[in-house]
């Protein structure tokens, strides 16, 4: 089947496609999330060293993955929007930013709840946590800059450039536990294999997929609102509202 990419690059057609797709992604997120929580809370065994508290990783690790992945996807949209001057890519970048900021906040928040019983402190200024905090401020800066101009297209372009400059932070976050030997532990899941128990790994992967589907659903819903706001003077939006 040939996918008509350019057909859906138009905001008016993408508005309908996003409205049709979003509920499916929310549905998938709910099913995968329920399965992930079931595996995480009931199937997965108690950790030998940390006890029950380790179960926070079923939210913490997927949220951290998504916080970085969403930034990467957002930066890709920004690159497309700057190179090809497309309106929809910039709108998608805008719609992803709040979800990314939310996951970054959740990662920091659950991390500090996990840190208190296991490390004995809510917060340490180590490289991983500090660079994740910088990521949160990059999301805030992106959102603030995008909305700081009278002309929304000007905001799109300025924020896109900021997102591309900020992408140097992603490898720093990802490799921080390798480069600096600090309190935050290294990764247990690698492409070459995992040192985790199978049920724990599955719980985490299911939750990560659920967060992923949620992010797609939420950004598609948000982009519909942005499209309506930007295109409010066009005939098709007026016809929709009438």
């Amino acid at each position: 089947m040939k996918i008509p990419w350019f057909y859906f690059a138009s905001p008016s057609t993408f508005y309908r496609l996003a409205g049709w797709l979003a509920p499916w992604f929310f549905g998938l997120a709910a099913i995968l999330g329920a399965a992930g929580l079931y595996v995480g809370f009931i199937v997965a065994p108690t950790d030998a060293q940390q006890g029950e508290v380790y179960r926070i990783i079923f939210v913490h690790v997927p949220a951290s993955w998504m916080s970085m992945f969403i930034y990467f996807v957002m930066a890709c949209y920004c690159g497309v929007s700057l190179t090809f001057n497309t309106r929809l890519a910039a709108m998608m970048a805008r719609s992803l930013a709040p979800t990314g900021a939310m996951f970054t906040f959740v990662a920091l928040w659950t991390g500090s709840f996990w840190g208190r019983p296991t490390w004995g402190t809510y917060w340490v200024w180590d490289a991983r946590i500090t660079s994740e905090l910088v990521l949160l401020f990059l999301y805030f800066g992106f959102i603030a800059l995008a909305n700081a101009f009278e002309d929304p297209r000007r905001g799109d372009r300025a924020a896109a450039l900021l997102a591309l400059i900020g992408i140097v932070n992603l490898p720093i976050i990802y490799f921080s536990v390798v480069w600096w030997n600090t309190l935050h532990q290294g990764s247990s899941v690698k492409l070459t294999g995992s040192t985790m128990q199978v049920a724990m790994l599955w719980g985490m992967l299911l939750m990560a997929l659920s967060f992923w589907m949620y992010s797609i659903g939420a950004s598609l819903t948000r982009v519909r609102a942005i499209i309506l706001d930007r295109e409010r003077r066009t005939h098709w939006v007026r016809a929709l509202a009438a």
Partner: protein
Amino acid sequence: MNAAAERLALSEPGGSFTAAFAWAFSRDLRLTMRHPGETLLVVAFFVLVASLFPLGVGAEPQLLQRIGPGVIWVCALLAAFLSLPGMFASDYADGSLEQMTLSPHPMSGWAMGKIAAHWFATGLPLTVLSPLLGLQYGLGGDTLLALAAALVIGTPVLSLLGAACTALTLGARGGGMLLALLALPLFVPVLVFGAGAAEAQASGLSAAPHLSILAAGLLVALVGLPPAVCAAVRIAMD
């Protein structure tokens, strides 16, 4: 240089990087010299804030030695940040930035000239002053040297990063606070390695690894950020 000569220098056919760099550098430095108050204010701010910390946290020599490099770096960071709006904003407001964009010279040339002038007017005085402030905090000779070396490598990175951020916020609402939100998080790595160099020296280790990372950061910033600054100025000119 009068207005006619300025126009001539800019409209010279062919255009070259060095000509544009030299023109913007000398022009911005001359403007700074004509208003010495602004540069002195930045320096005064630097000294004043650094002097507030011993009064706030208590004047025990050991504590001051411990926090000295970090405090001086944070002050340098804030001073560099506070002088950022002067780099492009006034030229943007009176239209000369648009004229520079229209000149045949490469944009990266005069943008780099402006950035270098900004560093000369802020980063360099702060570096020269830092040993004096370090003495106030009771830092040893080697630590003072490491601190000054870190500042001389690190403050150009602040000027480069700040130039990109301030160019992005040209014509934006809520300028100052927005600039803080964009620039300060990006300054964090420079702060970490800059203060780390002096702290490593103070605790008996070598400052060399931190200085090497800072220097590597400066090289990356020198290559990567001027195109970003130019792109940001072009976005502002659209």
